[in-house]
């Protein structure tokens, strides 16, 4: 099976090569606490984490926010647009004023702030849910391929190749056309993205499990009489956390852009449910007549993808012990020294 993996996969594999000692670790701290300490040490990742948290909050509290503004994403305001000139918003800066914080949508006059906020709900929701599906499928099939017999490995790898070869856009078009209309569209889009593009993460997990399988502590677990299932759960899964989380953090922004592309092809989320992809598709031709109609969703998309990717990089560095040492985590070193001397005194007293 071809060992070629995608960029994120290659990075993830690099990140997880030697889980073991690392000079920057703190005694008594379990993996998780160290992870947070290393993550906090990276300023960019911290800012990104805050931004992502904010975005999630906005997505969740969308109805509340629009209620505060006193608008909703679907009411038309014909009075605010100039019908003779193609429906361009009348007010300055695209109709930004007291009760329309970010102006009004051309042609329909719907409130842009409300649509943007509700759009976040769909775009982020679809992206996160699709990532969960991809990770779940990728991990299970990846581990099964690595731990199974040669024949199982060949079969699963062949299936992975097929799914990687299937053009995502085209198959989504077909699948989205087949399913009857009353099926909730955002859920359908999530399923399509999730079920079609898990190939790459499966390859990463398989490669990583193969390396872990060779490590002594996994052989020791087999010696102590444990079955393959328990070994997979207790020994392998924790080892997979680093590459999988790293890869997932890079999948989310990818999924957001795929949803936008599907909307561009006319098969994404259907009106009246707003999504950033949909707004972008409708807005890009208004680039000169009503620029803010394009800049808002494009800006939102950019900030989200930027924050998620920076956070992803930060997570990868925090999870990879070797990278942590490259980080020269300043604060940790002094405390660590004190802890070591304490440990020595204690053991040799």
């Amino acid at each position, binding site marked *: 099976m071809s060992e070629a993996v995608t960029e994120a996969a290659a990075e993830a594999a690099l990140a997880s090569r030697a889980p073991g000692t690392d000079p920057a670790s703190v005694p008594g701290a379990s993996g998780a606490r160290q992870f947070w300490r290393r993550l906090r040490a990276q300023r960019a990742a911290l800012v990104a984490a805050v931004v992502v948290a904010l975005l999630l909050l906005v997505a969740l509290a969308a109805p509340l926010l629009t209620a505060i503004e006193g608008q909703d994403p679907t009411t038309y305001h014909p009075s605010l647009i100039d019908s003779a000139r193609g429906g361009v918003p009348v007010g300055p800066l695209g109709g930004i004023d007291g009760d329309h914080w970010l102006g009004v949508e051309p042609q329909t006059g719907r409130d842009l702030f409300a649509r943007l906020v509700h759009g976040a709900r769909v775009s982020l929701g679809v992206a996160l849910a699709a990532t969960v599906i991809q990770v779940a499928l990728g991990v299970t099939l990846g581990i099964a391929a690595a731990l199974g017999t040669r024949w199982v490995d060949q079969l699963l790898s062949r299936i992975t190749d097929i799914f990687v070869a299937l053009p995502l856009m085209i198959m989504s078009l*077909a699948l989205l056309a*087949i399913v009857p209309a009353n099926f909730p569209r955002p859920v359908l889009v999530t399923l399509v993205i999730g079920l079609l593009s898990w190939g790459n993460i499966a390859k990463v997990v398989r490669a990583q499990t193969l390396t872990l399988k060779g490590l002594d502590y996994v052989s020791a677990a087999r010696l102590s009489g444990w079955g393959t299932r328990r070994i997979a759960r207790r020994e392998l899964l924790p080892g997979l956390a680093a590459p999988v989380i790293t890869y997932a953090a890079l999948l989310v922004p990818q999924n957001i852009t795929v949803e936008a592309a599907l909307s561009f*092809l006319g098969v994404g989320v259907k009106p009246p449910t707003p999504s950033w992809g949909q707004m972008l598709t409708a807005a890009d031709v208004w680039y000169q007549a009503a620029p803010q109609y394009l800049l808002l969703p494009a800006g939102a998309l950019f900030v989200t*993808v930027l924050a998620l990717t920076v956070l992803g990089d930060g997570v990868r560095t925090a999870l990879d012990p070797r990278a942590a040492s490259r980080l020269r985590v300043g604060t940790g070193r002094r405390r660590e020294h004190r802890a070591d001397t304490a440990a020595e005194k204690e053991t040799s007293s």
Partner: protein
Amino acid sequence: MSGFGGLPGFVLRRGIGTVLTLFAISVIVYVVFYVTPGDVAQITCGPRCSPAQVHQVAEQLRLDEPLHVRYWHFIEGLVVGQDYSTGTSVEHCRAPCLGLSYQSDQQVTGLILAKLPVSLSLVFGAMVLWLILGIGTGVLSAWRRGRLTERLLTALTLAGTATPVFVIGLILMIVVCGELQLLPFPQYVNLTDDPEQWAWNLLLPWLSLALIEAASFARLTRSSMLETLAEDHIRTFRAYGVGERSIIGRHALRGAFAPVIALNANNFGSAVGGAVLTETLFGLPGIGQELVHAVNVVDLPVVVGMVLVIGFFVVLANAVADVLYAVADRRVVLS
């Protein structure tokens, strides 16, 4: 030990693997599109056809046969070729024959041969650009790691991934072709007819497709170079007074070569099909655009033919990557 001993065996194994994969893809596509709603006969016959006429068209396109019979014809066509009546005469479609398009009665193989060069020239050109842009930025940010240039470049590359192609493409076109009128509006010119015009017209589509892909290459080049710089042999060369420039240029960059090949293969493969957005935006008559159109009118032969072509390129790209990987890093034995 070198990877070359296994090349003929490897090529044979991958060849069989490719055929199996493509066979599976064709079955999946056939089943998925057989179920797609939309009465093909009605679409082909036209909106105001009487039920009798629709039935005649369905018979002529052999639509009323069950799925497995139609799939058998498809395989028969691939192996032996098919005969189609054009009314006045019988047209033989030589093997490998992918059938006729329901809409245009053109041989799908001919359609693909006409459209493939467009998609390939788009994707190959974009590949060259995204490699230069991506690796260049990657090396620069690895060289200047920690300093301002690196942060700037990383933010720029992230911007690339964050904006969809149809936004970048359109704005680029409006600014460059419309207002500044530096470039002509993209209009596909055959490479064979006029290479200079061909490149001139494709410059903008190449740029917008490359901007998106370059970002992931920049990030990968940077991280694998940093990884290589932490290796022991870099310390050896430093201990022998070798200058920083050649350490970065000769050794660190060489280390990043293998992962970059792997990523390039994957991106190239999916770009052939995935460039549909760029093709649609710039009106390039490529495989992606035709495929999306065919999906809309449920033109099964065209859809199956083109998905197979795209699938073939993805699998081919991965196989080539494995060989290059083995060449680049002799320690890898071709599995």
